[in-house]
């Protein structure tokens, strides 16, 4: 297990190099010159030359890339053109917001999706199976923005069960510590705030988690159906074990590898691409951070945003790969 983990970590290095090469070249793919983009079309030649020198843009590309990676290794993501703040510091609250939302969305998706898939496979062709798979089909086909708006209309406006937008009650903001608001409110020992924070998470989590939930449910069902036909499941039954042991110990573990793959991919997608949901629910996540940067042509922020999302994606894949090995002792690389 240790050797396997080390090998997988070593394999990260070329991936990370490739990633930085791509984000590095984004700035140089901008039509015209970065200095001109920053200073605007009316800039004088002299001002442009000064800026180019101060930014190191007149150095060869190789040297520029080396400096870029050196800065990254020291945790320096550059400076935002718009706010003039250090991106490394500015980006954290957005990452935390996205993490928190993704965590609860995936919690919802995995819990409902896996269980619906299991029951559907166990009671194949029953009314439950039929209904669950119908909902799964609707779930995958439904546009997120439509679902989000419907949720807001029914549960926020008509029923007033949950707040429609934001991460907390903006009239009564809290002193952030980790920027994970659920954790923060627990750290503040303020339990009414824990409830309000969780209430803020309900609608966006469901909106964001519905598509992964549907995909996970379908994947779990088909994988379980496959496994339930296998010889070793017959052996477990022949030993005299009950349905629960058969399904939740032997069948689920064997059926889980493809489900885990889907969970990993979907988590990555949610972390990177939740812009629609974040916008509708005014959720200050990484998606809306990068979206604003695009509007302002804030290239260092776009660059850093892409790098961070790609990095998270790579880490999730690493975790999934390590979990494969944990589940299936036969896997080796």
């Amino acid at each position: 297990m240790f050797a396997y983990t080390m090998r997988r970590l070593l394999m990260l290095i070329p991936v990370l190099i490739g990633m930085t090469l791509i984000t590095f070249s984004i700035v140089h793919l901008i039509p015209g010159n970065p200095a001109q983009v920053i200073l605007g079309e009316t800039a004088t030649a002299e001002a442009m030359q000064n800026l180019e020198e101060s930014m190191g843009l007149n150095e060869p590309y190789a040297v520029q890339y080396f400096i870029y990676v050196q800065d990254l290794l020291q945790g320096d993501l550059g400076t935002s053109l718009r706010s003039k703040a250090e991106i490394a510091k500015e980006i954290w609250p957005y990452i935390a917001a996205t993490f928190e939302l993704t965590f609860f969305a995936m919690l919802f998706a995995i819990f409902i999706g896996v269980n619906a898939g299991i029951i559907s496979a166990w009671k194949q062709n029953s009314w439950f199976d039929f209904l669950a798979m119908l909902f799964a089909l609707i779930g995958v086909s439904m546009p997120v923005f439509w679902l989000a708006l419907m949720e807001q209309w029914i549960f926020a406006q008509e029923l007033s069960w949950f707040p429609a937008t934001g991460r907390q009650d903006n009239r009564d903001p809290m002193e952030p510590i980790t920027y994970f608001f659920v954790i923060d409110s627990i750290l503040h020992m303020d339990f009414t705030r824990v409830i309000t924070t969780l209430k803020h998470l309900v609608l966006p989590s469901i909106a964001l988690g519905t598509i992964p939930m549907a995909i996970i449910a379908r994947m779990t069902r088909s994988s379980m159906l496959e496994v339930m036909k296998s010889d070793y499941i017959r052996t477990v039954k022949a030993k005299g074990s009950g349905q629960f042991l058969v399904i939740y110990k032997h069948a689920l573990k064997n059926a889980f590898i493809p489900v885990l793959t889907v969970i990993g991919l979907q988590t990555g997608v949610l972390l990177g691409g939740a812009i629609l949901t974040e916008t509708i629910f005014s959720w200050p996540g990484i998606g809306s951070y990068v979206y604003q940067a695009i509007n302002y042509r804030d290239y260092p922020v776009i660059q850093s945003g892409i790098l961070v999302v790609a990095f998270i994606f790579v880490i999730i894949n690493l975790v999934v790969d390590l979990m494969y090995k944990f589940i299936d002792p036969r896997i080796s690389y």
Partner: protein
Amino acid sequence: MPETILELNELHTHFFTDNGEIPAVDGVSLSVNKGEVVGIVGESGCGKSVTSLSIMQLIPQPPGKIVSGEINFKGENLANSSNKRMKQIRGNEISMIFQEPMTSLDPLFTIGNQLREAIQLHNKMSKKEASDRALDMLEMVGIPRPKEVLSEYPHQLSGGMRQRVMIAMAMSCDPEILIADEPTTALDVTIQAQILDLMKKLNQEKDTAIMLITHDLGVVAEICDRVVVMYSGQVVEEGTTREILKDPKHPYSQGLIKSLPKIHEREQKLYSIPGTVPKPKMGVKGCRFAQRCPMAFERCFQEDPELYPLENNRRSRCFLYDDAKREVTENANADIRS
């Protein structure tokens, strides 16, 4: 009179498919006595495996279903016993091993875990006690370095070793009867002999009855006391191994024995029964084997033969042994003589 522990009585297991109802087991009656090794022989598709899975109530349902008949196990009819009762019986009083040792163990759990599971399902034991018992079982079935094997995964063992583990698992609760569904088919010949020896040893030491399902008459000759020959979902002949191998009564058994290669005879071509096993169908009239039978006569195509009793507790499903008919022919012969 030996004590009968398992008795099938007119068992019918049918499969309900898109192509209609298929009587895979079509009125099977047989019995297994205490401590006896009974071989069930027949070609592929004759209903041997379905019979054994029916006893364990492990027929995939749907499409399969036990339509009628009795499965009497020590005086209790299993055909209509509850799922809860079956859980107590499976692996404890009746256990089963399968044809494919390569795929019959869960690849994601250690051998020890899977053995302990079988033990703890039927015995109130701590994990430690169950582990000790698992170790004893592995030693009993002749696994080298049993301690290490307990913490190994199935993919680290060979096919023969896995089948030994399966046997250890099946024997771990001292069952009354072990059903072995072609346990040696997927193994090579030397390993086959070892596994058969092991089963024979367990049968003698533990007095566990064995119901051995096979298509290999060599395997039957090796360890079985009694043989039941099946054809197309029915029992066609029953008797002791010695008698059936030496003097088969039913034309199908005769064909089977004739098709074995013989060590002292040089023949260019091995005998084979013409034709193939017919697919079981509902409402077939006449003897199932009549189409392929060299001795078939008119009656074979019109009426269903019964299992006619013969001397020494033998039975044969063939009109050649119908008393009524025998009388008629004997009388006819007598007439001719007089």
